[in-house]
């Protein structure tokens, strides 16, 4: 199965999961507030947000462990109302992995197959295949208690994949692993998804995880879906300050709207002057003010006589060393907050003394307008 990894699978445009106006209330608290979403067939989709944003609630409703207070969920075109988890075409990888401790690896993986009453050889073949998919070949007889965290997770994956679900749901599957293993598993999960071509829905609070693995991401806050887009678009064109902030560092600059038309905005800022930017899709004007954002790594230190078409000048007030990168805090005359600049260390950014006057170059494409 893994040979096919190299060829990026083209997803179909068919919708696999449809969330229609789903609300889940607990008393007066709305864990999910009128959420609508369409997840495509064969897509690696992530629900990203801080804890309590409703992402897990939504995942559990797709699995059938929870039910919407209003609205409906469709999987493969079928309404899921009132259908219990054991009769849904979805399988889940639990945060705790939920490996049955009284069964060995093989028995765990075969658990769901037992009910299908397959021919003995067929069941064995499918278990072997699933174990091979997650690189656990040969560990079938191990007891669940003898496995490492990473292995337990692979068992949980195999146990779900062996059922050949239409949708695989993953509830923070990497959060219990240490950093190195987590990064390795990100790559592997992505590869696995490409190989099996099943729709994956991942819940995570780790923005890097979502960015690294997903075809598309839904960013959620307080029970609402703030933005649904590709990782690149979410990162580069966040719809609002909250999304921008959650996806990593962002410099925010106050701006006045000078001109607004169909596709673009003209903003006046202190520090960056007059700027023309693309208008975000969901831009809703709130008076005459807006916010301009630029990511720290999109600002470059201009050495000696180097020039850029667009520059700002300022003074280094702080310097933080992070190994491969250095973080500079640069005060710009006119800006109320200094800018954060992330610079790789190949040119000696780690040696710039605090107090140095420097110029920063940027690409106007990197400037993002956000509603205030």
């Amino acid at each position: 199965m893994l040979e096919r990894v190299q060829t990026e699978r083209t997803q179909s445009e068919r919708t696999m999961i449809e969330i229609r106006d789903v609300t889940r209330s607990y008393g007066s608290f709305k864990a999910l507030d009128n959420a609508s979403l369409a997840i495509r067939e064969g897509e690696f989709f992530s629900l990203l947000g801080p804890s309590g944003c409703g992402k897990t609630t939504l995942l559990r409703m797709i699995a059938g462990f929870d039910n919407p207070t209003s609205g409906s969920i469709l999987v493969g075109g079928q309404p899921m109302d009132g259908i219990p988890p054991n009769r849904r075409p979805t399988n889940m990888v639990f945060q705790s992995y939920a490996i049955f401790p009284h069964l060995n690896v093989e028995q765990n993986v075969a658990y769901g197959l037992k009910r299908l009453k397959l021919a003995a050889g067929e069941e064995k073949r499918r278990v072997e295949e699933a174990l091979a998919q997650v690189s656990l070949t040969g560990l079938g007889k191990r007891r669940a208690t003898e496995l490492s965290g990473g292995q337990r997770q692979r068992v949980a994956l195999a146990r779900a994949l062996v059922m050949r679900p239409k949708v695989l749901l993953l509830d923070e599957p990497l959060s219990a692993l240490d950093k190195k293993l987590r990064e390795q598993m990100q790559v592997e999960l992505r590869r696995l998804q490409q190989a099996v071509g099943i729709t994956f829905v991942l819940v995570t609070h780790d923005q890097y995880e979502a960015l690294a693995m997903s075809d598309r991401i839904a960013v959620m806050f307080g029970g609402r879906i703030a933005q649904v887009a590709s990782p690149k678009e979410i990162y580069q064109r966040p719809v609002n300050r909250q999304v921008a902030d959650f996806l990593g560092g962002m410099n925010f600059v106050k701006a006045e709207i000078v001109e607004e038309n169909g596709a673009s905005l003209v903003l006046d800022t202190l520090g960056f002057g007059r700027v023309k930017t693309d208008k975000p899709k969901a831009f809703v004007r709130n008076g005459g003010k807006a916010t301009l954002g630029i990511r720290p790594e999109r600002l470059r230190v201009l050495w000696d006589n180097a020039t850029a078409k667009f520059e700002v000048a300022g003074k280094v007030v702080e310097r933080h060393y992070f190994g491969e990168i250095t973080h500079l805090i640069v005060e710009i005359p006119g800006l109320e907050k200094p800018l954060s600049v992330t610079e790789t260390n190949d040119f000696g950014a780690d040696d710039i003394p605090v107090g140095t006057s420097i110029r920063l170059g940027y690409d106007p494409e990197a400037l993002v307008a956000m509603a205030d």
Partner: protein
Amino acid sequence: MTAIRRFLPGWLSSYATLYILFLYLPVIFLPIFSINTAATPKFPLSGVTLHWYEDLPKTPALIDATWNSLLVGISAAILSTVLGILAARSITRYRYPGRRAINGLIMAPLVLPEVIVAISMLLVMLQLGLSLSLFTVVLGHVLVCIPYSMTVLTSGFEGFDRSLEEASADLGESAFGTFRRVTLPMVAPAIISSLLVCFTISLDEFIIAFFLTGTEATLPIYIWGQLRFAAKLPGVLALGTLLLLASFVLMTVAEILRRRAARRTQNEGGLYA
């Protein structure tokens, strides 16, 4: 002892030794005098014999009492464990108002004076018009066994990761199938442990059996009856030793199983990568 000495200052280790002696000296006396050739329990021993043990199976009244005790013990163990499973499951799995109060009320017989419980049960039985028999003894024993059964079972059920049952449902299993294939195998050690504990308690229980039985004696009642005859004392000591041994073995097995159940239900996730 060397291990104790290493960690404790002198006076503390003598205190610990005295403490243990106080707890177990009476228990040690029983087997010692049960192999004494003389009928009076006095030091020095006059000789060693297994004669008293050999006489035990030759006493028909004792055989009857043993059967009665087994019957009562097994019935009480099964009944109180079934009731304990239901209560422990509800208390560990669900959150509802009055949960703590109910738990407290179920555990209360543990601290009520047994003689009072026995008298009140006797009154209830008579009011209900039940004639006293081994059946009424079983009812009484169920009452005193449930708190123990609950203690063992809640420790086995607690920390039962709900996602295990969810995972089973997610993999296509029905509610009953999930109970049979996941819940039951995981809590089985706790259930067996509860059965053993309850059986042991019923086997050793005297006061309630004394008040609630009709003409049929259980082992402790038989022993009580024998104490009137000084000549029978060594036989009683031998029987007592055997009961002690049986209780000790049963309780040890029960505790091992309880710990295994508690370990099993805790699904430690993937915290060790």
